[in-house]
């Protein structure tokens, strides 16, 4: 009986403490409220953004509470702290949290919620709050272009030779050591005898590069002509298929206004290429917009034009107006810098080998960005074909090699 009494008392004590702890945890969790704000939304993949969270909760005596703001999946915390630690009894205090994260994947990402860890002398528990109010706001992460340098053909153990064959158009690009499975007909016997190792010749021949296909996608938040867009899809698909048949590989650059959406680089598999077209050929989000944005070359051209016109003008009022206009253009020229889009385009194009480029666009909305695409291509002596899919304007055919916006730059 005495053992039963002692055991009953011990169990009652432990159980009572557990019930008290459980009730305190419930009170704490019920009092948690969180307000998050993002420094930018939507954001590009890989771009850092600041998150400001204000988390308020009621503490409890003798309770050690750790509240953590759970980041969205596939994001990295780069700066700041997303955790609050309290040891004393906090009554309805609000704790500000500031930290920076970098999203690593694109898509709509919600925060993973709030984690509340409570600990007292005897017990410890963690509750994760994942209600809709605890996981907002949704972070929209947009895809970004690939700006990596292309891999070179030469690897380890190869030596460039560039020995031109007199008999054929095929020349030897490099030599490398023999590997099992290599064709013995390609063995360079002279070099092999010299180094007492089997060396294989790697041949190259002059090739022509496939054209770059650039697709300017419409903005998803504005209306666009669906009929023309479907037509553009079929034209792009036809061109991609034809190019793949002719050149065995193709590069496609998707842009949406002054935003690089995606780059398909040197794709050889037709099925994979079509699948990527299906994935990316739809109206896209535009975090950056241009509105009648001339680049510095255009502005210089306008300044020169004004100067020439002012010299030729005889009426002093017209001269005054032209001088004023020139001053305005010069003022804009002083402060206007090249946009980030121009740099992205230049970096992307530097990875690709081409002699010709096709730009497909609906021509709806502002078309200033097309200048920034066409101009670097023209600077590299690449022939640019701008194709506007627009049935509403009879004066603009769907197949044309010049574009009013890129006037003077396209062939």
């Amino acid at each position, binding site marked *: 009986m005495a053992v039963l*009494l002692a055991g009953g008392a011990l169990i*009652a004590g432990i159980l009572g403490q557990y019930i008290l702890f459980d009730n305190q945890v419930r009170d704490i969790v019920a009092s948690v409220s969180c307000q998050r704000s993002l420094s930018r939304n939507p954001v590009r993949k890989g771009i850092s953004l600041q998150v400001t969270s204000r988390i308020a909760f009621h503490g409890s005596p003798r309770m050690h509470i750790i509240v953590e703001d759970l980041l969205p999946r596939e994001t990295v915390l780069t700066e700041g702290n997303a955790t609050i630690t309290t040891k004393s009894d906090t009554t309805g205090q609000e704790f500000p949290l500031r930290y920076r994260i970098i999203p690593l994947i694109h898509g709509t990402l919600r925060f993973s919620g709030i984690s509340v860890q409570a600990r007292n002398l005897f017990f410890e528990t963690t509750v994760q709050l994942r*209600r809709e109010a605890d996981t907002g706001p949704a972070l929209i992460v947009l895809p970004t272009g690939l700006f990596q340098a292309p891999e070179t053909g030469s690897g380890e153990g190869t030596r460039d030779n560039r020995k031109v064959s007199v008999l054929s158009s095929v020349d030897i690009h490099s030599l490398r050591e023999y590997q099992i499975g290599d064709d013995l007909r390609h063995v360079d016997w002279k070099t092999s005898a010299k180094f007492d190792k089997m060396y294989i010749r790697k041949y190259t021949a002059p090739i022509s590069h496939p054209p770059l296909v650039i697709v300017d996608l419409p903005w998803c938040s504005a209306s666009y002509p669906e009929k023309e867009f479907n037509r553009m899809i079929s034209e792009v698909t036809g061109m991609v298929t034809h190019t793949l048949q002719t050149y065995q590989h193709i590069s496609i650059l998707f842009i949406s206004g002054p935003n690089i959406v995606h780059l398909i680089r040197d794709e050889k598999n037709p099925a994979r290429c079509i699948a990527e077209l299906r994935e990316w050929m739809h109206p896209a989000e535009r975090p950056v917009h241009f509105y009648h944005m001339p680049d510095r070359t255009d502005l210089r051209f306008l300044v020169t034009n004004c100067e020439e016109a002012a010299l030729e003008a005889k009426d002093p009022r017209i001269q005054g107006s032209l001088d004023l206009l020139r001053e305005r253009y010069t003022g804009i020229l002083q402060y206007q810098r090249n946009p980030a889009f121009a740099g992205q385009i230049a970096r992307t194009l530097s990875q690709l080998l081409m002699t010709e480029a096709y730009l497909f666009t609906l021509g709806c909305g502002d078309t200033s960005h097309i200048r920034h695409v066409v101009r670097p291509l023209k600077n590299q002596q690449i022939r640019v074909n701008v194709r506007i899919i627009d049935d509403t304007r009879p004066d603009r055919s769907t197949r044309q090699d010049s574009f009013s916006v890129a006037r003077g730059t396209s062939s």
Partner: protein
Amino acid sequence: MSAFLPEYRFIIPLAAGIIGAALLLQPAIVYLDIIILLILISVFALTRTWHDRGFYLVCSSVPLMIGAGMMNLWAGMMVIWMVAGTLCTTLGLLASRQDLIHFIGFCGWVLIVTLLIEVSNHVLLPLLILAGSVVVVLAIQSVRAYQFRRYYSGAEQ
């Protein structure tokens, strides 16, 4: 240094009660009870600065609870009350009015258990009642915890 610690409010009546009950009832294990009491007091004095003092106090007080309960069930109940009070004071669990209410609630529960054991002729009935109560409480807590976590996980929206 404080002359009279809050724990003394429970440990002194505990010692006095054990000695008084031993003198009054004069059972066969009277010396054992006194020895266990001395062990408890020694542990109480020695573990003053130790981190896990509560655990050592519980371990050293359980034999005293059993010994006193074998001497007399009501003496056992008194030991449990005093030991619980000592533990709570040592661990800072008697700091507020709410804590005092919880402590009184615990003492009431021990009183009910003692009464139950007192009126029972055999150990089986109180054991079953105690075990059943614990199982019911644990089952209710499990369901509550499940509902609580389900609600906050966003599954019920």
